[in-house]
């Protein structure tokens, strides 16, 4: 039944038993302006859940081809755009507003810049996709800030982005990768450091 519902593009209700009363019918028509859908599930689609289960991350497709090499080459620091990196768990992906801090004035004649300026003017943003990261089900948590404080280079985990245009997943974040580095630097390796 559920497979059929998914195929029909409808949301699947997993838990609720069917409405029990026969005499009263719920009022039907949808109201204008409602986003619809059900309460958020962990995955947007069952397909995404299956990919996840099989540890088969999809190749991120970024909304614009962002040249990391150009920006790093001009000595723009990583944390200028990924501004959460020294403050909390997530480094964060910049909103178009961050881009416009510089590009209001710089390189305004380039087509890609005109593209994002137009987006900003429409009140829209860039739908960046994550390249790295863990899911809740991985039962592991990562916090950027203490690693920055310990002066771990960004490149240690993210590869040399100065040689990349769009960011690539150039380092596999396996548990062995983490533990090796923790051992080398005599950082704690107790389970609950990451699994909590």
């Amino acid at each position: 039944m559920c497979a059929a519902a998914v195929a029909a593009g409808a949301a699947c209700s997993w838990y609720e038993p069917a409405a029990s009363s026969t005499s009263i019918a719920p009022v039907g028509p949808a109201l204008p302006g409602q986003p619809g859908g059900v309460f958020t599930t962990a995955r947007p689609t069952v397909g995404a859940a299956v990919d996840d289960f099989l540890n088969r991350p999809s190749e991120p497709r970024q909304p614009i081809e962002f040249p990391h090499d150009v920006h790093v080459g001009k000595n723009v620091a990583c944390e200028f755009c990924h501004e959460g990196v020294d403050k909390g768990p997530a480094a964060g992906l910049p909103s178009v507003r961050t881009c416009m801090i510089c590009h209001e004035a710089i390189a305004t004649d380039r087509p890609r810049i005109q593209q994002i300026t137009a987006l900003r003017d429409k009140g829209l943003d860039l739908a960046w996709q994550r390249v790295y990261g863990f899911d809740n089900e991985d039962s592991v948590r990562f916090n950027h800030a203490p690693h920055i404080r310990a002066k771990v280079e960004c490149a240690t985990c993210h590869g040399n982005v100065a040689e990349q245009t769009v960011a690539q997943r150039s380092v596999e974040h396996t548990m062995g990768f983490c533990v090796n580095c923790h051992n080398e630097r005599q950082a704690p390796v107790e389970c609950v450091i990451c699994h909590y």
Partner: protein
Amino acid sequence: MDRRSFIKLTAVTGTSAALASCGVPENQLIRFVPDEDIVPGVAVWKPGVCPLCAAGCGLTVRVMDADADVARNGQLGVVRIAAAKKLEGAPNHPVNRGGLCARGQAAIQVTYHPDRITQPLKRAGERGDGRYEAISWDDALADVVSRLDGLEEAGNQRALAFLSRGGASHRAVLIEQFLARFGAPPPAVYELFGDEVLRRANATSFGREQLPTIDLANAMFVLSFGADFLGTWNSPVAQAAAYGVMRQGRPGIRGGFVQVESRMSQTGASADEWVPARPGTEGVLALGLAHVIMAAALRPASAAGRAGALVDGWSDGLRSYTPEQVEKITGVAAARVVRLARQFAEMRPSVAVVAGPPLAHTNGLFTAVAVNALNALVGSIEQPGGVFFTPQVDLAAALKMSGRAAGAPAPPFRLQREGADDPHIGDAQVLLVDGANPVFTAPRVWGVDQALAKVPYIVSFGSFLDEMAVLADLILPDHSFLEAWREAVPESGATVAVASVAPPVMRPLYQTRSTPDVLLEVGRRLRRPLNLPWQTFDQMLAAAFAALPSASPDADAWTDAQAKGAWSGPVPPGLGRAASLPAPPAARPIAFEEPRFDGDAGQFPFHFLPYPSSAFLDGSLAHLPWLQEMPDPLTSAMWSSWVEINPAAAERLGIGQGDVLEIASAHGSIRAAAVLTPGIAPDMVAMPVGQGHRTFTRYASGRGANPVEALAPMTEPATGALAWAATRVRVSRVGPPDGRLVLFAGGMREHVEEHR
């Protein structure tokens, strides 16, 4: 093939083909520029106020970055916002002190509900069929303004009516000011489980028109007459915390607790002793105890003062309430009456509490006054371990407005106007509705929907399409409580005056507007503007809190209250609500009258008790799926309605667990599944209120049955409050279990084990 691969394969086979076409929905979404800078992954906690009941508990709200579906400039899309993610009780709030009940925990779902109304709507179909079309805020407000201007031009301002739920708040003051300045009658207030009878009794006995705050934490013996103070009544979080202290928080001391009620509530299940009395005779038992205490000279009759003097025969020692007489009326054995009386008088401090079903009879006022007199007799008024009244700030006075005479009794809910200035809804030309849903919570025989059908123009401020909102011609959806300035003025739960307040926790998700701000704007746009002295609701709140003394030396009261989520402290002179109302004129003393019931005892052999459900209260929370999923604490039922019936009665009628029953009164009938429970009198059936919504989002619509539909129009005469426990019914089995009853983990283990 190893086990892991096998599981993976079986999980994938068969479904993967259907799913391959789903794609990556992110690519199809519109993303808006975020409104604020937030540090991803870092949580901040902000104060909030729980909106779900009148207790006014303080919240602390965890706010983090999140992708949210929102509407901006008429377009739906996704934006990264600072979103409320979790609600907890505010640790320093004087009422809930860090606690939060299950309902409060589920309040987060109000904001993110998929069926929330996201923008102003104008009726497009017939009333009640739920078809609406989008309308802009400008057009919607212009529509309301032109209707109100029309009334004003015709000199018919009294035809504007406002329907809301009760309780003191700055929002209510704003509504009263709006109506008074327009020239309309005060708002009509309807609350099914509204406690009007208890307020009136407290005004009569003690001069305080308000609910009591019970100092359970210091009590040695608690005698509760039907009050579900651990579940649904008054300020359950404050009461549950204090109850914990009474039972387990004092080394070496465990307070005693006896519950008198004819259907075991969640609270009754915690009692040391459960005393079933005949419905409507609980007051007789209270006077029986008072008789024994006075006859044994444990306390003098004069100790009860005004509260005792109101009761017929008090000064003579209540000679007509001997234990034998009490046994005859209430069914509680005489020896037990004597023992309870001695316990109550000797285990000091002791306190009696009354609320709920005992007051929902035609003689409810007598019952409450009798229990008040019993409390006064043992000296438990405004004493540690006794009954307190939370000092109340006169909100209108703090704003230098003239309001309803402080402490004056609220007028009863009426459909039709009686006096020219009485609140009403049935004679209105324009009706504004904020929160109340009498279509669901009033007996069908009152004819609320017929009365509303005659009202030409109904405006609802609701966030969900419930039975009331679906009758509206225009819906102007309010912000959720996390998106707007919220406040509450708790009537009880603390021994000092409290006012909760919190700024918006997050930006609005949709094109909704805060209802107080909408009223202020309408007031400005009228042909004859109302000249309310505030531009926005937060300006009004700032003015109100500025009149209060600051609880902190470092900040003024308004700044301090916003940071903490509440103001509390002594009420400054001139701003308190009357500490004591004058004694009522020397009417005849209050005596026991037999409770009257609707329905002949031969034809309708069972008492019918609809009671507030632990999950949904009066049904206003049935749209929250977490609460639907929450097992009832006594029956473990969820997602459904049920009828509680005594096993002896069930056997006589051939009824088994889960059988479908028909409950019929002289005014209507409903069907629900039977739950056999020994915790109910054999001549009574009980049903939780809350399910049976015709329309109330995908989670509640068409689920279960609404017991209020079958209620008779019996009222308590002094207050006009619905006597919701005064209907008799007959019970018949219509079929075997059909799956409509859902029990947690498949059933009650005790029951299964007992009947193996």
